[in-house]
C-alpha cells in the first residue's frame, strides 16, 4: 500500500520525545503526545478513515477540527467504547483503540460499497418511495436499511465511566480562545470582572497554532501561550480548554461539556453556565468547492492542510493541486512548500487573484491558473489526478487542497435567536450584528474575515454540471448537487423541506461545511436570492454530546438524592432490606434467619395483628397550620368539615385538585388553639404542600394563615397491635393511654422514655395503633426504648410491604393505586365526607354530571371464587358472560395473599362499584401474566369492618 501521507522529520507542536501507541482496526500504530487521532492516523499512512453514510464510498480526512464530516470513529472497546467521535478532535492517548465505522467486513473491503455502483438508483427519497408497499413490511426494510447506512453502534454494556455536572457563574464568558477570543478575554479581565474562557481545543490559540510564524516573526503558539499565561495569572480568569460550548439559551444560560484526561475522575463534565455577558469568538470554518469527485480521499480543506503540517508535523500528500475561489487558498502555499509537498498547480476560479495572493504564489514559484476550475477529481481510494477546465487538462496529484471561502461559526448565535443574513460579497451567512449589553461577537464569527478577500461562487457551474456527476454538497450524508436539484423538481425547494428530503445539514456535523452550499444551490435552482432561500434552524448541540454527560451522575442510586429517615441506623441494625419510596430509602421488610420476602412479610403481619409491631412513618409529610383563619383555610382545602374539630382531636381528610379528583389524603389534628398539624402521604407530600401554598398565596391571600413545614423535624414511629397499649404503658406509666382517656382519633402531648413526644391515636394498619412523634435527633433513643419496652410483648419492626398488606386488608387507600388522579371521593367510597353546604376547592367540578355517573369506576374488594387462586397483579376486570368480546369493567389496584384471612384478596376499581357488579359474573384477566381468575365482588374492607380493633 502506498503511503501518500507521512510524518515530517521535524516541526509541529507535538512532543516527539513522548511516543504513544494505539490501534486502528486492530493494527498497532505509533503517534506522539500532541497528536490528534486524525493526525496520528495520517502520519501512519492511513488514507481511508471511513465509509460514507449511504454509498459507502471511501472517505479520507477532509478537515482538521469540529467541521470534519468524514473521520467519524469509535474510540475504546467494550463498555468503554464511544461511537461517532470526530477523529480530528480527539487527542491521542497511549493505548487508545480506534475503530472505523459503517463498514463490513473491513474498511478496505466493504460489502456496502456496492451501493456506490447503483447510486443512480438511490437518489434522495428513494427509500420512502420504494419501500411503501406493503406498509407493514417497512419495519423489516428499515432494519436492513439502518444496518446498511448509518454511524457507529453504542455499546450494549453499562457505561462504566463517571460523569459530573457543575454550575458556573461569570460576568463575561468568552467562547473561543483563538486570537480574537484571547484578546477579548484579556480586555475583559483587565476591567476586573470575572471571565471564563472556553475553547474546544486542548490548547488555546485557535488559528495561531496553525501558523509556523506570524507576520511579526513570532511563532503562533508562542504568542498564544504568552497570552494564555497572562490570563491564567489573573485571579479573575478561568480558562477551560477541551470544553465545547454547545448550547446558548435565554438569559445567557449556556451549556458546555469538558472532556477530561481520564484517570479516576469524571470522563466528561457538563457545565451549566450563567454569564452576564457572552463574547462569541468562535471563528469561522472553511468550505469546500463543488466538483465531480470532491469527496475522494486526498481532497482536503486548505486550512486543514496547513494545520496538519504546522501543528502536527504531518505531510498530507506529496503532489498537490490547490483549488480556491478566494485568497485563503494561497495561504497554504508556504506551509506546503516548507513540508516538501510539490504543488502541481493553483487553480483559482476568480479571473484575478488579489495582489497579495499573487505575490505569495510568485514567491514560491507556484503557477496560478486564474479563471479556471476543477471539472473533476479522479481516483478510487485516493485522488490520482484532477481535470482542470476550461478544457480537459489532466494533472496528476495525490492531494487536492480546496478553499471555497469561510463561514462564520454562528451556530450558537443562531441558537439564542440571533439572525443571520447572506452576505453576497463573502458568499456566506454572517450574523446580523445588533448592539447588546448581553453579548458581543468578535473576530471571524462577526464576519471579520479579511484574509479571504473576494469570494467567487461556484453554484451556478455546479448546477450546470450536476447531472451524471458525483458532486457532493454534504459529505457526511452523501448528498449530491443532483439530490438538491431533484428535491426542487419534486416541490421540496424550501430550505427546510430540502433539508428533510435530502438530509443535507443533518448528522453529527450538522452541515458545518455544507449548509452554505445548500443555500447557494437552492438559490440557483429556484431562482431566488440566497436571503429569500433562508437557512435552517441551528439547534443545540453544536457538536455531539453524549447522554452520559447530559445525565451526569444522576443514575442508579444517585438518580435523586437519597433521603434517609431518622431511624435509618436502626433499620440497618435490624437487617432491613431497603427500597426507594419516593425519594426516601425505606425498609421493605426485615428478614430473619434466611427468610424469604414473603415469609418475612407474613411473619411481620401476623405478629402485628396478634401481638405488636413498630413501623417507621417519618416520611409522611407534616405541616403546621397557624393563624386565626386556619380553620377557614382547612374548610376550603379539604372536602371535610373541621369547624368543630376540638383541640386534641384528629380527623381523616381528603384534599382535591381543582378538577375534583383526589389529590391526597391524611390526617388533620388540632394541636392547640389556632394551630393544626396536617399530614400528607409520602408520595404526594411535596405536591400537596405546593398545592396548599398556591391556594394561600394566589387564591386566598387574604386569609391570615401561615404554613410551617415540619416533616423533617419529627420522627414518627407507629406502635400497632393488640399489645400496643401495654408497650406504651411501659414507656411511661404516667401517660394515661386508657381507651377512655385516649380514644381513637385523639392526640396527646407528653413524654415517652423521657423524651418529649406527640402521640396520635390513628391507624393505617387497622390495629390499635399509636403514632409517636419525637424530635428527629432523638429518634434512635425512642426506637431503642420501644424495643426494650415491647420485648416481652413480642414486638417486631415491620416494613413497607407488611404495612401495604395490612392497609389492603383494611381497605385503606394508597396514592398511585387507588388515588390515581382519576378518582373522586365518591369513587373511593368517601363521598359522604364531602361537605354539601359549603364550598371547597374542587367542589364546582366535582358535581359535574360526568363525575356523578353510576357507571364510574368505584372502589371494591375482590375475592377469588375458588378461595385460593391469586388475583393477578394489574389485571383487568371483564364480564365473563360475553367472553367473545368481553367488556372491560375495571382493573385491579392492589392484590395480595392475606395472611390474616389465609386467602387471596384484592382491591379494584370497578364500573358501578359493588351495587351493579353483584349482578354480573366477572373475572380478572392478565394478558401479561396469561392468567384468568373468576372473582366475587365484596366490600373493600376485609378485616375488622366495624373498626373494633382500632378502637379497642
Amino acid at each position, binding site marked *: 500500500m502506498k503511503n501518500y501521507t507521512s510524518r515530517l522529520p521535524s516541526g509541529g507542536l507535538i512532543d516527539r520525545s513522548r511516543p504513544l501507541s494505539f490501534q486502528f482496526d486492530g493494527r498497532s500504530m505509533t503517534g506522539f503526545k500532541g497528536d490528534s487521532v486524525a493526525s496520528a492516523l495520517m502520519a501512519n499512512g492511513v488514507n481511508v478513515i471511513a465509509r460514507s453514510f449511504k454509498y459507502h464510498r471511501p472517505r479520507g480526512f477532509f478537515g482538521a477540527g469540529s467541521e470534519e464530516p468524514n473521520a467519524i470513529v469509535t474510540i475504546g472497546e467494550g463498555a468503554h467504547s464511544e461511537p461517532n467521535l470526530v477523529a480530528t478532535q480527539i487527542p491521542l492517548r497511549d493505548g487508545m483503540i480506534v475503530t472505523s465505522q459503517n463498514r463490513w467486513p473491513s474498511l478496505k473491503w466493504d460489502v456496502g460499497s456496492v451501493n456506490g455502483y447503483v447510486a443512480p438508483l438511490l437518489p434522495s427519497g428513494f427509500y420512502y418511495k420504494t419501500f411503501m408497499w406493503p406498509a407493514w413490511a417497512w419495519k423489516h426494510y428499515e432494519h436492513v436499511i439502518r444496518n446498511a447506512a448509518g454511524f457507529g453502534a453504542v455499546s450494549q454494556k453499562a457505561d462504566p465511566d463517571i460523569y459530573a455536572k457543575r454550575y458556573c*457563574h461569570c460576568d463575561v464568558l468568552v467562547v473561543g480562545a483563538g486570537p480574537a477570543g484571547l484578546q477579548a478575554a484579556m480586555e475583559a479581565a483587565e476591567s476586573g470582572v470575572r471571565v471564563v474562557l472556553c475553547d474546544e481545543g486542548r490548547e488555546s490559540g485557535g488559528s495561531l497554532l496553525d501558523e509556523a510564524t506570524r507576520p511579526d516573526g513570532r511563532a503562533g503558539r508562542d504568542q498564544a501561550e504568552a497570552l494564555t499565561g497572562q490570563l491564567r495569572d489573573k485571579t479573575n480568569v478561568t480558562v477551560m480548554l477541551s470544553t465545547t460550548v454547545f448550547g446558548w439559551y435565554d438569559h445567557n444560560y449556556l451549556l458546555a461539556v469538558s472532556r477530561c484526561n481520564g484517570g479516576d475522575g469524571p470522563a466528561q463534565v457538563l457545565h451549566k453556565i450563567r454569564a452576564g455577558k457572552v463574547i462569541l469568538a468562535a471563528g469561522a470554518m472553511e468550505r469546500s468547492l463543488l466538483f465531480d469527485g470532491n469527496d475522494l480521499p486526498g481532497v482536503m480543506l486548505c486550512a486543514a492542510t496547513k494545520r496538519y503540517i504546522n501543528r502536527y508535523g504531518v505531510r498530507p500528500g506529496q503532489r498537490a493541486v490547490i483549488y480556491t475561489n478566494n485568497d485563503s487558498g494561497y495561504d497554504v502555499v508556504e506551509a506546503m512548500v516548507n513540508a516538501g509537498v510539490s504543488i502541481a498547480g493553483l487553480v483559482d476560479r476568480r479571473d484575478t487573484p488579489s495582489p497579495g495572493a499573487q505575490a505569495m504564489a510568485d514567491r514560491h514559484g507556484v503557477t496560478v491558473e486564474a479563471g479556471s476550475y476543477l471539472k473533476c477529481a479522479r481516483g478510487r481510494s485516493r485522488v490520482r489526478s484532477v481535470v482542470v477546465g476550461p478544457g480537459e487538462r489532466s494533472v496528476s496529484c495525490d492531494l487536492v487542497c480546496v478553499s471555497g471561502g469561510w463561514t462564520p461559526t454562528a451556530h450558537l448565535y443562531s441558537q439564542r435567536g440571533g439572525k443571520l443574513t447572506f452576505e453576497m460579497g463573502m458568499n456566506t451567512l454572517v450574523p446580523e450584528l445588533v448592539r447588546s449589553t448581553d453579548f458581543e461577537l468578535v473576530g471571524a464569527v462577526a464576519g471579520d474575515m479579511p484574509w479571504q478577500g473576494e469570494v467567487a461562487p461556484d453554484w451556478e457551474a455546479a448546477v450546470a454540471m450536476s447531472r451524471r456527476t458525483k458532486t457532493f454538497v454534504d459529505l457526511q450524508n452523501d448528498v449530491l448537487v443532483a439530490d438538491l436539484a431533484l428535491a426542487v423538481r419534486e416541490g421540496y425547494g424550501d430550505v427546510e423541506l430540502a433539508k428533510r428530503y435530502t438530509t443535507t445539514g443533518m448528522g453529527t456535523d450538522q452541515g458545518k461545511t455544507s449548509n452554505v452550499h445548500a443555500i447557494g444551490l437552492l438559490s440557483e435552482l429556484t431562482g431566488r436570492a440566497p436571503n429569500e432561500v433562508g437557512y435552517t434552524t441551528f439547534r443545540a448541540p453544536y457538536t455531539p454530546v453524549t447522554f452520559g454527560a447530559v445525565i451526569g451522575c444522576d443514575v442508579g442510586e444517585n438518580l435523586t*438524592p437519597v433521603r434517609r429517615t431518622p431511624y435509618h441506623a436502626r433499620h440497618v441494625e435490624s437487617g432491613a432490606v431497603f427500597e426507594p419510596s419516593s425519594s426516601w430509602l425505606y425498609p421493605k421488610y426485615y428478614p430473619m434467619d434466611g427468610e424469604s420476602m414473603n415469609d418475612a412479610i407474613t411473619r411481620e403481619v401476623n405478629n402485628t395483628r396478634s401481638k405488636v409491631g413498630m413501623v417507621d412513618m417519618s416520611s409522611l409529610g407534616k405541616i403546621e397550620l397557624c393563624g386565626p383563619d386556619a380553620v377557614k383555610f382547612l374548610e376550603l382545602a379539604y372536602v371535610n368539615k373541621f369547624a368543630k374539630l376540638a383541640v386534641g382531636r384528629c380527623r381523616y381528610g381528603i384534599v382535591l385538585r381543582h378538577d375534583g379528583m383526589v389529590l391526597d389524603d391524611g390526617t388533620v389534628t388540632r394541636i392547640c388553639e389556632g394551630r393544626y398539624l396536617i399530614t400528607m402521604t409520602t408520595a404526594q407530600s411535596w405536591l400537596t404542600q405546593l398545592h396548599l401554598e398556591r391556594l394561600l398565596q394566589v387564591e386566598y391571600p387574604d386569609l391570615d394563615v401561615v404554613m410551617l413545614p415540619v416533616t423533617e423535624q*419529627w420522627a414518627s414511629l407507629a406502635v400497632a397491635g393488640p399489645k400496643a397499649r401495654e408497650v406504651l404503658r411501659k414507656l411511661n406509666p404516667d401517660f394515661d393511654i386508657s381507651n377512655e382517656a385516649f380514644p381513637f382519633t385523639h392526640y396527646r402531648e407528653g413524654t415517652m422514655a423521657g423524651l418529649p413526644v406527640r402521640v396520635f391515636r390513628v391507624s393505617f394498619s387497622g390495629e390499635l395503633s399509636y403514632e409517636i412523634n419525637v424530635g*428527629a*435527633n432523638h429518634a434512635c433513643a425512642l426506637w431503642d426504648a420501644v424495643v426494650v419496652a415491647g420485648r416481652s410483648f413480642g414486638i417486631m419492626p415491620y416494613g413497607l410491604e407488611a404495612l401495604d398488606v395490612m392497609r389492603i386488608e383494611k381497605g385503606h387507600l394508597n396514592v398511585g393505586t387507588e388515588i390515581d388522579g382519576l378518582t373522586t371521593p365518591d369513587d373511593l367510597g368517601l363521598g359522604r365526607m364531602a361537605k354539601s353546604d359549603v364550598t371547597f376547592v374542587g367542589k364546582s367540578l366535582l358535581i359535574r354530571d360526568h363525575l356523578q355517573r353510576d357507571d364510574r369506576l368505584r372502589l371494591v374488594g375482590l375475592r377469588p371464587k375458588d378461595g385460593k387462586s391469586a388475583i393477578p397483579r394489574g389485571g383487568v376486570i371483564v364480564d365473563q358472560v360475553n367472553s367473545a368480546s368481553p367488556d372491560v369493567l375495571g382493573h385491579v389496584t392492589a392484590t395480595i395473599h392475606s395472611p390474616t384471612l389465609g386467602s387471596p384478596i384484592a382491591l379494584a376499581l370497578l364500573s358501578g362499584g359493588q351495587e351493579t357488579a353483584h349482578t354480573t359474573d366477572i373475572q380478572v384477566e392478565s394478558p401479561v401474566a396469561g392468567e384468568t381468575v373468576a372473582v366475587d365482588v365484596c366490600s373493600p374492607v376485609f378485616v375488622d369492618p366495624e373498626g373494633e380493633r382500632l378502637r379497642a
Partner: protein
Amino acid sequence: MPDQPLFQSAFFEPGEEFNLPVAVGGVSVKENQPCRMTLLAGKAANLPSVGQTAALRQDCVVLGLAPGRWLVVYDTETTVADEFATDQLFASDHSDAWAVMTVSGAKATDVLQALCPVDMHPVNFVNDTCFQSRIGGSPALVFKNGSDGRYRVFIPRSSARAVLEDICDMAAFL
C-alpha cells in the same frame, strides 16, 4: 430509659468509619453542634428581609428565608423559647429539622459553587447574607457568616448524608 436524650447526627451512623469533621481536597466540613433553630412565619416588621440576616445576640442570628418566613439559629443547647412569637408571628421548633455543617477552606467556595445554581461569588454573596437553593439536587440553606470561604450550610435532615457525599466527591474532583 435514657436519662438524657442522646444527640443523633444526621450525617453518619453511629460507629461508622466515615465521620465528621472531614477534610477533602482543600475543603473542611464539620458538623455544627450545638445548634438549635426556630422557624418563624407570619408578619414582623423588625426581622431581616429575604436573604439578609441579623445577629440578635452573640449566640443567636435570624436568617430571612422567604417573605414572611425566618429561621432563628441559636448556637446553644438552650431550649428554644418562643421568644419571637406574637399573635401575628408563629414559631415552630426546627432544631431537628436541619442538619447543619460548616464548610470552609480554600476550595470551599469552588466546591459549593459547582454544586449550587446560585452565584456565590463574594461580590454577589456577601458576608452575613443567606440564600435558599439546592446543593447537589437537595434543598439547602447557605449562610455566609464571617468571611469568604466559610459557610454554614443547612440541609433538611433526611438529605444531609447525600449532600455531604456530594460535597466530598466534588472536593476530591476539584
